[in-house]
């Protein structure tokens, strides 16, 4: 693998000095051949649909009067539409709450489960288990928990807490979805952080102990800075995956009550497949991608280390 990469580099240099023909004789064509399946998949499955979405978002197709070019008309109409405005607000609010919450929970659980404590492997497996459950099945399970006469209120009643409305009230529905998603997701992200924590050399902790650093101090000055890379990955990957949440909304709330859980992905789905307004849905896809790129870029900037 490394020799191939090095070889490709030499070929590049040669190509610059002797012209394109010698490029054909180097290992570059072979490298390209090996890369071809991935490149084709990238173009066919990623770039082409993105291009189609962009182009489609500039047109309007009507059942009765055919297709017309409307430029940015779909975007303007979307931004003037109260439902779309609400969907953007809900999505941003959701992003701001769910990502820090999940990453913090995953980090704390990772720290906890890397301690040598009785049964920590067993507990760790329990936390990871929900990943094995398909999201749709998780949603169905939680629909029973969240029912007004369901398990959730049953458990609250044991502690003397009055019944909550969960998914049936606009105030609690988004938070209920966040709890359910964290139940699914936290264990998964925790695994990456556990790998990161296990990579931290034990000597650092020994040295810190000799210097009299407390466990809390060790966590913040050794563990946290040294798992920065996996942490950055987890934050970015978690953010992207949370932008693409669909199944629990579709199964549990259908965006309601009063649009309080109408995340962008669900809004795109209803616009495309229920309202048959594919062009505006494509415009929404473009907007969603732009928002994701901006937020991920921001996260990279914040997490950039000095080195």
């Amino acid at each position, binding site marked *: 693998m490394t020799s191939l990469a090095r070889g490709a580099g030499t070929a590049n240099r040669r190509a610059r000095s002797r012209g394109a023909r010698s490029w054909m004789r180097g290992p570059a064509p072979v490298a390209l051949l090996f890369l071809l399946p991935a490149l084709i998949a990238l173009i066919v499955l990623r770039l082409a649909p993105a291009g189609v979405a962009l182009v489609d978002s500039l047109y309007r197709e009507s*059942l009765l009067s055919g297709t017309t070019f409307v430029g940015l008309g779909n975007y303007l109409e979307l931004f003037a539409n109260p439902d779309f405005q609400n969907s953007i607000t809900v999505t941003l609010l959701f992003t701001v709450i769910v990502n820090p919450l999940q990453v913090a929970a995953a980090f704390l659980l990772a720290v906890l489960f890397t301690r040598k404590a009785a049964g920590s492997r067993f507990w760790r497996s329990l936390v990871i288990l929900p990943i094995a459950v398909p999201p749709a099945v998780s949603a169905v399970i939680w629909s029973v928990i969240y029912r*007004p006469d*369901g398990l959730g209120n049953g458990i609250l009643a044991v502690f003397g807490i009055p019944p909550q409305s969960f998914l049936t*009230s606009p105030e609690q529905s988004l938070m209920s979805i966040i709890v359910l998603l964290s139940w699914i997701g936290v264990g998964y992200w925790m695994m990456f952080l556990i790998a990161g924590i296990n990579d931290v050399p034990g000597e650092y902790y020994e040295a810190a102990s000799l210097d009299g650093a407390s466990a809390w101090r060790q966590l913040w000055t050794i563990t946290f800075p040294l798992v920065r890379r996996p942490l950055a990955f987890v934050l970015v990957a978690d953010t992207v995956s949370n932008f693409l949440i669909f199944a629990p909304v579709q199964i549990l709330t259908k965006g309601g009550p009063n649009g309080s859980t109408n995340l962008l992905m669900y809004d795109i789905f209803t616009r495309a497949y229920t*309202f048959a307004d594919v062009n505006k849905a494509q415009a929404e896809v473009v907007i969603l991608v732009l928002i994701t790129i901006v937020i991920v870029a921001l996260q990279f900037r914040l997490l950039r280390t000095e080195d």
Partner: protein
Amino acid sequence: MRRPTTITAGVIAAALALTGCAGSADSSGSSGDGSGAVSFVGPEDPAVFAPVIDAFEAAYPDITVDYTQVPFDTYATTLQQRLSAKDDTIDVFAVDQPNLAQIAAQGFLEDLSDLEDEAKAATSAAQFDINIYDGTMYALPVWNSTQMLFYNKDILDAAGIEAPSLNPDERWTWEQVAEAGAQAQAAGIESGLLLEQAEAYYQLQPLIESLGGGSGITGDDMLTADVTTDGWVEAMEWYGGTFESGLSPRGVGGFQTSAVFTDQKTAFFVGGPWDIGGFADADFAWGIAPHPSFDGGEAVTPTGSWSWGVNTASTNKDAARTFLEFVALDAAGNLASTETQTIIPANTEAAAEYLPKLEALGGDNSAGAADLITYEIENTAVARPVSIGYVQFESIINAAIADIRNGSDAMERLTQAQQQIEDAWSQLR
């Protein structure tokens, strides 16, 4: 409308889909009945249509029928794609009745006007009308549905409430149901009343129409939303109130509602004929009564299910029509289509034969069901509106019903829905 539980795709379905795409045979030389292969596409499990296909092939040995299942969840979109590509491997296809206008407007359904007289004679008025778009008949009704009031007799007896009468002339009002429900709650039952599809337009339309609120769609082109009339607001306020007061339970979803009745957690339940089979094993006494209406309002019941039509791109139209006529207009054929399903045949003659069997499923509990269903279909059934914008309309209204159920102000939420429908329809024109 009830989606039969058998629509989930299985391995068998996939296998059948592979063999089912054989395509149509030539239509040359076929006069009258036609011959060759007919490709039929629908959302149900292949086992559902096996009896009717066998019966048809026995009656018309020159024609074979290949059935392809497209699961319900992707049915509308798959059909849209294949029909707009002028796919001639579909000859006959099942049409979800509220979607008929949208499909017909795009020219995907063969004009069946020459069968109008026969169709009118074979089915109920509401089931005939729903296949007409812009003055032309595009499909024939195959299945039908209705709704009735179920009550838990043991609970009513214990609470000292006299059960509602089976006689449509003594139909209970919603107010009466609410009062009796509250009385049953006072006697210890969890809920008084629950509607099976608690957040569906199909289920709530009769309440709105009972108060003269209209279907919600008006205009010559049926693209004018009208969901803020007095009838709409009053009906939805009443409905929201049943949840506010605790008469009906919030948060119980689509597939969980009939279990609330079988678990003896509600005194009254509004459901369809399929529930008769579902409640047959209940270990308590229950009964049926006519679908309620509002005090001083009109008696209105839901109706409608699936029609079938012929693809305009079909290359074997004669045989396709023969198959369609056999299933919709021939009583024996229509009856065969319901052999494995608890669903009402749209053909009046077939229904007359089928309903006593349905009634027998529930034993003494469902005595009188056949006459009641026949009465409602003939006298009180009001179909969902025929409009090319129905799909958008239904989705927005269902969301509004769900919000009102969860406590939104009816007037405010319906005004919002009105705006949402107008927005969604603006791209149809």
